[in-house]
């Protein structure tokens, strides 16, 4: 088999319907393939995976490689990485993309190592350079810096992609794709990891690290009582509440909610920052937010300079005004 221009996407279907990262990557791969040529392919391992194969075709995969076997029932890092490396060596795609779920972040490095190729972690964008190479765009240092990375010589070019980065294509029931079924190879290595238990336990609380909207309050909220307003706002917005160190130390909220170097880094789509000046320990943990609205009386606060929208006003009053505005806007 000679090298192809094909772009492969690993079918990571655990937690489907919530986990949509494979569909998101297929959409971007379709776009990239218009510039590089080659076919967009999905790769699926497991037992009884027909429904996912159909789903990937409906979302842009032109070809799907499938190894469907009762022995692959468990999501196994060892088996799946062995199979993925085996198929890549057999069919020689130009690019291999994997969703940066925890599973994807485990399997991709194993496969890259086996194939002696490069891998960029947790990309937030992909581009094609003038030579047709894949430019892998990834954050480092908690998102303070963004690096553009290429794989000049080794193939396939590999990257894991942060979930939510790309928008999936509309489901197209009429889409046709080629399905290539492959038997489990005879030389499967003996597993050294035995799965004793694997239980689906979705966390009930979304958690501040995963929330799409995070509302963080600082000392500028005024008092413990006034700080509580943030929870009302959070309820209205399906948001989580976080806090800065002084607020946690003052016992306005528990340590669990600390956002900062010693606390939790967050990556929400929208971040509201109420009455926070922006100490470096705090800002380092929030730079991954896509869109920041900061509210502070002091227009020169670091936090205000970092924001997409900086509202120069009293944090507590703006909080109340946003609560009123949203109640009006979601009223039937």
């Amino acid at each position, binding site marked *: 088999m000679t090298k192809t221009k094909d772009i492969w996407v690993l079918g990571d279907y*655990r937690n489907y319907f919530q*986990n949509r990262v494979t569909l998101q990557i297929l959409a971007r791969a379709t776009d990239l393939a218009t510039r590089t040529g080659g076919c967009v392919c999905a790769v699926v391992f497991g037992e009884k995976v027909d429904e996912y194969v159909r789903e990937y075709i409906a979302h842009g995969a032109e070809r799907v490689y499938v190894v469907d076997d009762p022995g692959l029932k468990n999501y196994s*890092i060892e088996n799946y990485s062995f199979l993925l490396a085996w198929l890549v060596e057999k069919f020689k795609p130009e690019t291999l993309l994997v969703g940066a779920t*925890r*599973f994807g972040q*485990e399997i991709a*490095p*194993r496969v*890259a*190592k086996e194939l*002696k190729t*490069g*891998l*960029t*972690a*947790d990309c937030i964008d992909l581009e094609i350079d003038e030579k047709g190479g894949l430019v892998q765009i990834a954050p*480092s*240092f*908690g998102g*303070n810096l*963004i*690096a*553009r*990375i*290429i*794989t000049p010589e*080794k193939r396939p070019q590999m990257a894991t992609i942060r979930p939510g980065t790309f928008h999936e294509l509309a489901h197209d029931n009429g889409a046709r794709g080629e399905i290539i079924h492959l038997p489990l190879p005879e030389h499967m290595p003996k597993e*050294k*990891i035995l*799965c*004793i238990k*694997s*239980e689906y336990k979705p966390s009930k609380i979304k958690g501040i690290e995963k929330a*799409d*909207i995070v509302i963080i309050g600082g000392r500028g909220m005024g008092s413990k009582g006034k700080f509580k307003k943030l929870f009302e706002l959070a309820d209205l*917005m*399906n*948001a989580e509440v976080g806090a800065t160190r002084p607020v946690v130390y003052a016992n306005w909220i528990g340590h669990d909610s600390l956002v900062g*170097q010693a606390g939790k880094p967050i990556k*929400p*789509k*929208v971040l509201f920052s109420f009455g926070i000046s922006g100490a*470096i320990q705090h800002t*380092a943990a929030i*730079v991954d937010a896509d*869109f920041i*609205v900061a509210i502070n009386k002091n*227009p020169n606060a670091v936090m205000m300079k970092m*924001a*997409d*929208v*900086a*509202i*120069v*006003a*009293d944090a507590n009053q*703006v909080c109340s*005004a946003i609560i009123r505005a949203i109640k*009006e*806007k979601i009223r039937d």
Partner: protein
Amino acid sequence: MKMLKIIVCLKQVPMVSELPWNSKTGTLKRELAQGMMDPCSRRALEAGLQIKESRDRKGMETHVTALSMGPAMAEEILHQAKALGADRGVLLSDRRMAGADTFLTSLILGKYIKKEIPDADLVICGSQTSDSETAQVGPQLAGELSIPAIGYAIDIQLQGQKARVRRYVDDFQETFEMDLPGLVTIDQGAYTPRYTALGGLQDAFDEPDISMVDAHMLGLGHDFNALKDSPTRIIDVYSPTTQKENKVLKGAVKNVVDQLFEEYGKVISHAMGKDLKTHDHGEVI
């Protein structure tokens, strides 16, 4: 009874709170950074030390090697590791190792382990470091050593030549039994690290016996150059915060909030997963 050999991989990272910071561009001046032990590496070390302590109580021998790769200044974190309870510190350091990507880093770490501690039973790494955050070195080191690996562990229990490992990933609670030798990476929320006893730290520095290993000692050829040999290449690095619009809204509170929703209502409603009506017409935006 056979001695258990544990290797804990540690990385020195820039200390964010001490970093010179350009507040206009939001850029870190990394070259001026002070170093510290990566927070997740500390948890990996804690896991190793807890295993050692629990075996000590049963009269079983355990040897913990703290292993790092980095510039000479990274020696500090190995002294710290020794003060906390590691038996030995080893630093792989050479100008020719600089600029290694995860593939090369795992290759270099693996070369040392295969050469000097080929009978290691358990390798422990942090799941990811606070600077580059790739989460790749652990799994790739396991690949280099041809041993099994489990990522994001929250608990490790050794039972003979097996490790029972628990983790919570992608909404699944999982328990595995892994044959040793094997590698485990520790989740960033597990194994809360102990603090360094000041006396211990002093002793560790008084006893300057961190082993330094260069490229030549690892048997890496004269033409070895990690920056050049890495399969990936960084084209450039930039600061994302410079691209922010930084729109400033001033005036009466009610007006600025109305303006916020008029101009950015779509961004907010999209993140909320709810439709919001526009102020004037009750139209859905």
